[in-house]
């Protein structure tokens, strides 16, 4: 019985949906190759104008786009579709998590930001050790 329980626990852990097991995260890390980028995982929802603003305006802003693409790989997750990785809970949408290749959460930003302050945040987060 104990063995069965241990096996079930191990199975549950293996399939618990950690960030390291997340397919989108894995493919983002793979796309980095040897470059030392960070993953920007943004939680969105269909009916979220702030999310649309970030994606359609801020991420594409000329003061943001170059630095963003050079230093980050964006992963979008719709909070109403599919499972979210463990330890990445959210309070509001959009929430942006900045994660290193190993899956360590470096910073979390909640809510939308205008291009200029967002660019400053990107530089600050990139400079974090």
């Amino acid at each position, binding site marked *: 019985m104990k063995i069965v329980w241990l096996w079930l626990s191990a199975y549950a852990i293996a399939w618990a949906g950690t960030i390291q097991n997340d397919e989108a995260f894995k493919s983002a890390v793979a796309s980095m190759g040897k470059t030392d980028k960070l993953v920007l995982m943004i939680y969105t929802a269909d009916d979220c*104008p702030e999310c*649309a*603003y970030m994606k359609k305006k801020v991420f594409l802003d000329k003061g943001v786009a170059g630095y963003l693409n050079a230093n980050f790989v964006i992963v979008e997750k719709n909070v109403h579709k599919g499972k979210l990785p463990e330890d990445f809970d959210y309070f509001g949408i959009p929430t942006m998590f900045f994660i290193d290749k190993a899956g360590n959460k470096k910073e979390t930003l909640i809510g939308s930001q205008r291009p200029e302050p967002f660019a400053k945040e990107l530089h600050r987060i990139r400079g974090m050790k």
Partner: protein
Amino acid sequence: MKNVLIALMMGWAALGAYDAAHLKKTLEEKECVGCDLRGADLRNIDFSGGDLSRSDLSGADLSNSIFVMCSFDDANLSRAKALGAIFWKGSMERADLSHMQAKGANFKGTHLNRADLSHADLRETKSWKANFTEAKLFQTDFRGAELGDAKFIRNDLRTAKLKNALLWQTRFSESVMSKAQCSTAKREEAILDANVTCR
């Protein structure tokens, strides 16, 4: 001089003249309809899902409190202080918010239809998707506010301050705006329908 002093003292007394039983009920139950909460100290408290409709909260201090999905319909919040308060998805229809100080507050998805926001300080508020239909906006200060996807229907915005306000996909309909406001709104990719008057 003596009369002025007496008037000032009376005014001060009126500001803090809430009903203690009503305040107790509000703090314990998060619900107090039609209550007297004038000048009450309601800072740093979570009132989410509460109902304070038709209550008199004039001069009250609501700063940094949370009122998620709370009802303030027909309430009086004139001269209330609500710095950094969260009114997310709440309802403030027909409420008196004149002279309210709500810098940095969150009004995301809040219904403010027919509310009186005259002279209200809404600087740097997060007001995405808020509904301002037929709200009174005389000298309302929206400077630096995020008003993306908010609705302004049948409003006179000419005296409202919109400098540095985020107006992306903000909907203006059947409203009157100054020419400067119209050009700013268009530049910010707001949606102005044919019934908006720019003058």
